[in-house]
């Protein structure tokens, strides 16, 4: 299959869906001539015009609100927040409006919108441009939260998110934009709520999200040389969360490590671990289910500190090895 970068896969999804569905438009800051801060919308404005690739003033509350209003009146907007961090300015419209509207209106409205957020550290952009906030949205009933880790998933999940009748927070990772992988040319969707077993193994299960899936796979390669066979699972959507493959895997391996970039305290890992403990897998566990996550600190500017703030391949290798060896 032909290969695309994660960025190109997202671009292609937008391009194909806009060609097919006139209800879809994209709205955000500097997404036209500039092509988006990370280049995802590239030349789409040339193709679809300023009325469907809409450049806004710097107004994140306005962007989110415009998506909500358009969505409840028959459109399928895709909003772009330049850096995930600035979604904090959109929160009222997302949390108090988009998420609750259908419920408050007795199930009679739908809010089919997607808000794309480039998340994550690793670019030297320091504390206000490097956050990972996905779990905030997981805590809000009514929102769905999607976190693609590969170009293939990026395209399929974006198309599924646009097709979905609910508000979807779509978390991309800045370090993934340039990563490459096979992507089918035709349009396809990956259902929201379907975990992906990315690599099979029998000794330990690693459940990872976003950029940490890539790092976990690299760690698994290294551990394989030591004779440790790692199973890597990517939930892909963290709400809805497809637990079945995860509990099954936990039962098989008896050992689970959860890895994400966002700060550990209050992060998604806590939810995942709880669900494992509440499941039938509990009786099969040979070790505490452990988390490897970002340190509880804002992202520092200094390169070395930044690197050590979030889980890297060597941390995953070490942590998984400890769990397998029973020393933690």
């Amino acid at each position: 299959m032909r290969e695309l970068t994660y960025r190109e896969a997202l671009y292609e999804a937008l391009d194909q869906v806009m060609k097919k569905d006139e209800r879809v438009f994209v709205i955000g800051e500097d997404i036209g001539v500039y092509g988006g801060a990370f280049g995802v919308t590239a030349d789409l404005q040339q193709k679809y015009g300023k009325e469907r690739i809409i450049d806004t003033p710097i107004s994140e509350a306005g962007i989110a609100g415009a998506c909500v209003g358009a969505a409840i009146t028959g459109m399928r907007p895709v909003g772009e927040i330049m850096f995930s961090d600035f979604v904090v300015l959109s929160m009222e419209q997302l949390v108090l409006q988009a998420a609750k509207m259908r419920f408050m209106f007795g199930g009679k409205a739908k809010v089919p919108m997607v808000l794309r957020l480039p998340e994550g550290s690793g670019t030297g952009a320091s504390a206000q441009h490097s956050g990972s906030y996905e779990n905030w949205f997981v805590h809000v009933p009514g929102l769905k939260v999607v976190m693609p880790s590969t170009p293939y998933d990026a395209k399929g999940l974006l198309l599924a998110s646009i097709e979905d009748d609910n508000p979807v927070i779509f978390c991309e990772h800045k370090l993934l934009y340039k990563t490459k992988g096979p992507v089918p040319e035709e349009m396809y969707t990956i259902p929201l709520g379907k975990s992906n077993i990315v690599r099979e193994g029998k000794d330990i299960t690693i459940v990872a999200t976003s950029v940490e899936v890539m790092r976990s796979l690299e760690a698994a390669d290294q551990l394989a040389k030591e004779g440790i066979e790692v199973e890597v699972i990517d939930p892909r959507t963290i709400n809805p969360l497809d637990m079945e493959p995860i509990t099954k895997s936990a039962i098989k391996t008896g050992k689970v490590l959860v890895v994400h970039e966002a700060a550990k305290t209050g992060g998604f890992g806590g939810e995942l671990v709880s669900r494992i403990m509440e499941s039938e897998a509990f009786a099969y566990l040979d070790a505490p289910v452990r988390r490897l996550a970002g340190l509880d600190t804002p992202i520092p500017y200094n390169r070395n500190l930044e690197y050590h703030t979030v889980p890297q391949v060597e941390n995953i290798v070490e942590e998984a090895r400890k769990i397998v060896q029973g020393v933690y």
Partner: protein
Amino acid sequence: MEKEKLIGGEFKPDEAQHLLYLMVLTRAFEENAEEMYALGKVHGTMHLSIGQEAIAAGASSALTRNDYLLNTHRGHGHFLAWGGDLNHMMAEFLGKETGYCRGRGGSMHIADVESNNLGANGVVAGNLPIAVGVGLSIKIRKTDQVALTLFGDGASNEGAFHESLNMASIWDLPIVYLCENNLYAMSTPFDQAFKIEEISTRASSYGIKGVTIDGNDVFAVHKAVREAAQRARKGDGPTLIEAMTYRWRGHSKSDRQAYRTREEVKEWMEKDPIPRFAAKIGVNDTEMEEIRQQVKQDIQKAVEFAENSPEPDLSTILEGVYA
């Protein structure tokens, strides 16, 4: 009598010389920053104010160091004009322990709270609501300080702009709102984001004074900020100053500048605030060359200082999250 001794009615000769030095220094700092970025010595991104140096020189010189500065992402010039030390600034830029923020903040968050420099801000309009709190605190403490708050044309379209100006106006807070209108917010041209001709006209909706000035003229900036600060200190509340200028470089390090023409950039480069100020204060080419040499040496020393400074120790990674 006294007035006649001041150049252009605003500056004593040595003060004017110093401001010129600061402008040349700011430009050299940023040109050097570009070079270091290209060499891979700094990571992340940076926002250069080359072409906009007159605003920093004119504004900071109109206030005392007992006042407050709330800076933006494009704030190297303001940082230096406020009195920032070049060595420790350079060290921050290189992420070193000796930097103003111990290498944690970088150029986008550089601050020196001790000198009432409350920091650059990575969030567009992020400092506008904070200014209200600073103004309020000044009022409650009954000092005669003023808060100089910088922001761009783009920032004027965040909701925070409205809340901040309204609160400051109803409470007559001592805030100088200084909008650096460089005609673009990243790739967004002014006329695509505004239906009005001048941002300063928004002042009327808050019942405060608004002026649009030539932001490439140190004298005009200085005068406007000086007058606004006088009003603020008297208890007459905030002023909205819009300083018209232009950034010569791209928005940040990843900007292809497809949204504007070379001709437009060239046109503005001819309105370079540095030679303009030099001419106005009677500095000739030889003197200018001397300033340049001085600046070059100072930058070199700062780079040496920064490069010889230690990296933050990994064991301190969690320091500073909580007090």
